[in-house]
């Protein structure tokens, strides 16, 4: 094995190909070259202390990424050639992909833009290279997800205009505003928000159990892009943890600033993930684990270990963590109930769970499901069976910060909606929680500018005042194809014909009456 020593070792290679490629400017001041490095109040005394534990250099990066892409596209080809969409567990599953393509994939693109931007703003070479690689990763994720789902677009409705919808549709303003908030912050807050709070603390919940769920539902294309993206994510997570440790080690004045950002971005991420909770508990016909179980493993257990490690820097677990931990037994049900009611204004279908699915939920949520949610769902199922599929035509009140309708309940009283309001410069603002209200109070000048879909409709900025016009003309959701109840939908009929079954006429008529 003596031959091996002829190669540079990993540490030296990283030093030569990363740090040593940088130089000290001579005829321009550093502050002019990196103008955004100071305004957030973060003090960096020595960029040389920055550690990239993977010590990945550009040459190795291209080599491994190329290999990942080759494997990924071989599977996409095989999936398409073999009509892989016919082998999924049930076509209801495809609705999770519609939400993913319009809600998550555009975030990958936003992350690409965000890292490309902040990668320019740091005077440390190690940080710049790590951000550059991550920017390219995120672009790859956005592209591979669109490629994977383009196959489904040939066979199912609702996948035809994801980027357009992301900018306009009411519930998609939730993920969109999350990333816009991060991207319009300073570079250190962006890294704390996305690299640490989102990538390290929370994305496991999006990409690990949900993708394992995709595999369990026969969707090899999605599980493959999911895990291929997540293999980059392991590097991003490591970056996230190193970023935090680096900032905290640089100066004690950084600690309260970072703590405030961790509190803010944990809460924003937790609210955003309500959508994922709903996908896991309601949109995967074959279920791997419940949202509550995933939260326990990936937040309470892994996040707990992480925050214990950060104690030595004077960092405590995020504020309102107790509320989030308690909410694991509620959020997925509350979110699904909301989408079910507003299924006429979504690019995917909704439905009430079947009997065995309700039983599974009762088993997984013994303290909450039977008591608070099952009776409501059984009532809606009965209404639907009698030709009265319920749709709510009143536009909901949105939280000024997370932009989710104020549908969540108080920690100590699940029958009481959680609602906060404050007056700011003569205007009244509404919030879903203390967590979101605190974020507003800290930077009201930012959040008064929020583009709230419901307000925009009422102000006449969405091509019409009635739901139908907004949905059709402004959102580009095809009425009667993309939206409404799943049972009797064109997707449902197509799926039955793929499986060689006839359409249940009764269900179809019930749907028609209600619509």
């Amino acid at each position, binding site marked *: 094995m003596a031959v091996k020593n002829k190669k540079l070792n990993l540490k030296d290679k990283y030093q030569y190909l990363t740090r040593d490629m940088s130089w000290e400017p001579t005829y321009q001041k550093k502050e002019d070259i990196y103008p955004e490095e100071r305004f957030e109040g973060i003090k960096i005394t020595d960029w040389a202390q920055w550690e990239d534990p993977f010590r990945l250099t550009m040459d190795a990066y291209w080599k*491994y990424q190329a290999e*990942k892409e080759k*494997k990924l596209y071989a599977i996409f080809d095989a999936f398409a050639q073999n009509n892989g969409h016919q082998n999924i567990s049930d076509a209801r599953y495809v609705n999770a992909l519609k939400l993913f393509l319009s809600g998550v994939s555009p975030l990958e693109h936003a992350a690409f833009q965000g890292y490309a931007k902040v990668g320019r703003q740091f005077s440390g070479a190690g940080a710049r290279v790590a951000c550059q690689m991550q920017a390219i990763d995120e672009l790859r994720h956005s592209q591979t997800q669109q490629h994977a789902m383009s196959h489904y677009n040939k066979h199912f409705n609702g996948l035809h205009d994801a980027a357009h919808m992301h900018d306009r549709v009411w519930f998609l303003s939730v993920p969109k505003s999350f990333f816009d908030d991060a991207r319009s912050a300073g570079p250190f807050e962006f890294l704390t928000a996305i690299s640490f709070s989102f990538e390290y603390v929370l994305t496991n919940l999006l*990409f690990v159990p949900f993708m394992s769920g995709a595999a*369990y539902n026969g969707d090899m294309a999605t599980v493959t892009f999911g895990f291929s993206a997540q293999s980059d*994510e392991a590097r991003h997570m*490591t970056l996230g943890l190193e970023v935090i440790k680096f900032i905290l080690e640089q100066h004690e004045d950084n600690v309260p600033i970072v703590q405030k950002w961790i509190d803010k971005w944990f809460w924003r991420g937790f609210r955003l993930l309500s959508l994922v909770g709903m996908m896991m508990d309601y949109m995967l016909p074959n279920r*791997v684990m419940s949202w509550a179980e995933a939260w326990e493993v990936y937040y309470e257990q892994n996040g707990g*270990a992480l925050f214990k*490690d950060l104690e030595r820097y004077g960092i405590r677990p995020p504020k309102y963590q107790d509320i989030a931990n308690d909410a694991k037994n509620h959020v997925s049900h509350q979110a699904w109930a909301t989408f079910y009611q507003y299924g006429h204004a979504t690019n995917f279908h909704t439905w009430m769970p079947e009997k065995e699915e309700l039983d599974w939920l009762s088993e997984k949520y013994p303290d909450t499901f039977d008591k608070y949610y099952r009776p409501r769902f059984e009532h809606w199922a009965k209404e639907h069976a009698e030709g009265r599929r319920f749709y709510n035509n009143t536009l909901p009140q949105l939280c000024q910060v997370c932009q989710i309708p104020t549908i969540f309940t108080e920690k100590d009283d699940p029958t009481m909606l959680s609602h906060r309001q404050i007056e700011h410069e003569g205007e009244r603002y509404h919030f879903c929680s203390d967590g979101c209200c605190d974020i507003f109070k800290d930077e009201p000048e930012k959040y008064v500018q929020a583009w709230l879909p419901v307000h925009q409709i009422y102000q006449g900025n969405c091509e019409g005042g009635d739901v139908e016009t907004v949905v059709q003309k402004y959102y580009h959701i095809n009425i009667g194809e993309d939206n409404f109840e799943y049972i009797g939908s064109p997707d449902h009929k197509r799926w039955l014909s793929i499986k060689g079954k006839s359409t249940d006429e009764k269900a179809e008529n019930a749907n028609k009456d209600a619509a």
Partner: protein
Amino acid sequence: MSQLVFIAFQDNDNARYLAEAIMEDNPEAELQHQPAMIRIQAEKRLVINRETMEEKLGRDWDVQEMLIDVISIGGNVDEDDDHFILQWK
């Protein structure tokens, strides 16, 4: 309080060797099979040794090759030419 580190791999041919090597070098670790993935967790520390992997594979193995099959990790990373270590200090 227990403080677990973890690593998850795609359940494929490469990862089966990785899982074997990890379980040999970290006998106290717990291995979980989930759809399409293998997840390994251990108290405080997990190590992947290049030497063990090379024995399993019967060929040279670069520690960074694990990047292709890894899905997620939890813990501080320390990597050099011979090891990939995850730990909470």
